[in-house]
């Protein structure tokens, strides 16, 4: 499942980088798109703001079918303090912007390639 986790992160990060190239974070001197997987970073009590933090929170295995079906759950957390120059009064708007970016990245096609193939088979029948 590690490959699935890696692919999900890299895909989502590249989509977000296209949607809003200015959303970046600096981690250990490296400027990169504003998304990280918490389990792959140095443990810290500090919550990075204005970036998306991925946590893998659940794993289920369904072995009733001919092949086991593994389902993973990913939690995406993000927060902002607003702009310092505005006294933080714009934090609601900035959070709404992050909501829109994430919704756009998750809604970008294709979401379920397997489902499309099934639909195509049905149409040929």
């Amino acid at each position: 499942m590690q490959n699935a986790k890696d692919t999900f992160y890299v895909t989502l990060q590249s989509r977000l980088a296209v949607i809003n190239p200015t959303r970046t974070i600096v981690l250990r001197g490296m400027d990169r798109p504003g998304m990280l997987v918490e389990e792959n970073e140095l443990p810290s009590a500090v919550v990075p703001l204005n970036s998306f933090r991925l946590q893998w929170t659940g794993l289920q295995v369904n072995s009733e079918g001919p092949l086991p079906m593994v389902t993973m759950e990913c939690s995406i957390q993000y927060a902002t303090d607003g702009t310092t120059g505005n006294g933080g009064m714009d934090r609601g708007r900035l959070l709404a912007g992050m909501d829109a970016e994430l919704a756009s990245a998750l809604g970008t096609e294709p979401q379920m390639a397997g489902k499309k193939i099934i639909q195509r088979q049905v149409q040929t029948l």
Partner: protein
Amino acid sequence: MSDLVNRGSAALRAADVLLRAMGGRSVMLRIPAPAAADVTEQLGIATPAFQDMPLKPVVFRKAWATVDENKAAKWEMLVSASAVEGVVGSLKYDSASALFASAFGVLSDDELLEIESATEEQAFGQPYVYRLVLRAPLVQMV
């Protein structure tokens, strides 16, 4: 102006003497190497190298930790500004705050303590001591 600089450096030297007189000891500041340009570290495949830089003299304000219920134990450590300036200069950091922000923790008696906050005390516009609040290591579970 030069009078102010002299007074500032006098405070720095006085702080050094006081820290040594109070049993100034040595700790190591653990600093991770800059992140790699590729995604291997972001995916947890590669891990960064760490560099331990000595900080001396330092003093823990209390011999025991402050422990609140359901919270990590905390220590307060005073570090000589001359020691911090030495590390900032040798590693080419912009400032002490940038150094402490990028540090992974403080190694004290083989225990890695996380830096919760770092503040400086100034005299005549020049820092003479840094106050670090350290906390017990986080449980590294995912």
